[in-house]
């Protein structure tokens, strides 16, 4: 029977679907590539300033003694400010990638297509709605993973020795997000949340708004509770002490015990960077996976 033969025929190859996604979202694609190119060029330029910037940010002495340069000479170098503020801007941009991605995914990628009926147009072609959604998510996800991941690597390279006086400490929110895999996970979570909002609201503007609000909530929740994502270290000593420069202080208490002043510090040493990155990345990927699964279930339930 023809009907059965057609139904069990091999699936339509996905190349056409991916080309269609690229063609219908060409503006977003071009804009993303432009942003990537600009950010990469900016980071390469910042990297080239690195050595000079570090020379402008070092110990000095007036008059110069013990091999230390004169402070007047060091202060005359201003490139370190350019370097530091450039890195800060890139860090902020990288840690906010989620917001435009979520708004775009909710609005342009899914919401507008359902609102205008072009989604239904695609669903009545030879590809089914679930394959349509898969391509809609997979193509931008691949681009975002490669783009954000690449930028994180270039960012780490541009930061050189990550001198905290120039590049910021590892635990600064923007620095933390922009120097590890968590940046990619934020972008993917934004994409998935946006797609889900688009499918739920089926209209571009509300979906974009809801996706953006959900992303802001997730981003600020994780930023606020980042220090709880991995067990912190506690150091208790009689008298007073100082934590190392790159420790993230969680709690600090000096209270006399039996008349002896005791200082109790709770903190994350720099070695907690990777465990914290992994836990946060895992949480974000779980959010992304849940939102994606919900989007597929919703679409499958709505259609015959």
């Amino acid at each position, binding site marked *: 029977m023809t009907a059965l033969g057609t139904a069990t025929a091999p699936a339509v190859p996905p190349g056409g679907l991916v*080309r269609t996604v690229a063609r219908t979202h060409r*503006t977003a694609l071009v804009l993303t590539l432009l942003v990537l190119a600009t950010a990469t060029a900016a980071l390469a330029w910042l990297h080239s300033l690195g050595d000079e910037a570090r020379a402008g940010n070092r110990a000095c002495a007036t008059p110069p003694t013990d091999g230390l340069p004169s402070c007047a000479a060091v202060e005359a170098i201003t490139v370190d400010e350019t370097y530091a503020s450039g890195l800060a801007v890139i860090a902020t941009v990288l840690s906010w990638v989620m917001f435009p991605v979520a708004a775009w995914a909710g609005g342009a990628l899914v919401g507008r297509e359902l609102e205008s*009926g072009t989604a239904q147009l695609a*669903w*009545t072609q*030879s590809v*089914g709605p679930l394959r349509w959604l898969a391509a809609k998510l997979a193509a931008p996800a691949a681009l975002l993973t490669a783009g954000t991941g690449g930028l994180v690597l270039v960012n780490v390279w541009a930061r050189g020795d990550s001198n905290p006086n120039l590049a910021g400490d590892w635990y600064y929110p923007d620095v933390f997000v922009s120097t590890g895999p968590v940046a990619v996970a934020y972008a993917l979570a934004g994409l998935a949340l946006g797609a889900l909002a688009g499918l739920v609201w089926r209209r571009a503007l509300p979906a974009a708004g809801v996706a953006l609000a959900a992303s802001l909530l997730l981003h600020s929740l994780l930023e606020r509770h980042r220090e709880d994502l991995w067990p912190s270290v506690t150091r208790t000593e009689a008298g007073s002490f100082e934590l190392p420069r790159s420790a993230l202080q969680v709690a600090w208490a000096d209270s006399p015990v039996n008349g002896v002043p005791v200082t109790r510090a709770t903190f994350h040493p720099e070695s907690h960077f990777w465990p914290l990155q992994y836990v946060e990345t895992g949480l974000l990927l779980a959010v992304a996976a849940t939102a994606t699964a919900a989007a597929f279930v919703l679409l499958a339930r709505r*259609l*015959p």
Partner: protein
Amino acid sequence: MTDTAIEAAGLGRRFGRRRAPALDGCTFRLPAGRVCALTGPNGAGKSTLLALAAGLLRPTEGGITVLGTTPAAARERLAYVAQHKPLHPQLTIAGTLRLGRDLNPRRWDARVAERIVAEGGLDPDTKIRALSGGQRTRVALALALGKRPELLLLDEPMADLDPLARHQLTATLMADAADHGTTVVMSSHVVAELEGSCDHLLLLGSGRVRLAGPLDDLLAAHTLVTGRAGKALDPHTVVESRATGRQLTALVRPAGPLGDGFQSDRPSLEEVVLAHLRSPDAPPLLLDRRGAAV
């Protein structure tokens, strides 16, 4: 190959619990190879029925099979043009047709699609957003026909075409359907638009099937009678009767020979449809059963 293009059994669709159902208990069968007019007043459920057949809606009651299978499984073999002709405004006409090729790699016939666009004198490099309503319709039809569908579902396809374009596109559509044996379902509330191009009728009213069957059989089943008022039309099913002074005009489904004193005429499609629309309580007539008057 199944000989049935669409078959619905007790098909119903509700949008929200409080609202009246858009479709309610529809049972009909459309044989393959027909050009079917789907008509009815606004809100009769025409668009809902087409969306159900296209696999874009899930029925809340009953079921529908398309080309012998579920609408979802028949997706590759049917084409659907929605009422407002959704297309990507940022793409060019050529880009839109490329989309058709990419999404239907096993079926796409570029020549058919390009010919329909060329017949309208459209430049393939024009953006969709720059097109008029009628020109968009042409591109949407080109996209649908380029897929070489076995079943073509068209929701108000001719609504925003000028008379010349309407005539030309209808001719293209009919020639294509005749050449390939495509089943076409065309909805419209303009009956005159459908007469002459269709050979099957499905009339919906308030979500129910009022008339279904081959056009000729449906017309043959009705007689327009005129006679003196007060005469009984008893054994016959009266769809609508109007008395003007002593003159009685009625559309009936004769159950046998009409009595003396009546003058009978063959009604036009428009007369049959209008009579049914004016009399919502007239019993439905379904001549589409397997073996019945085909």
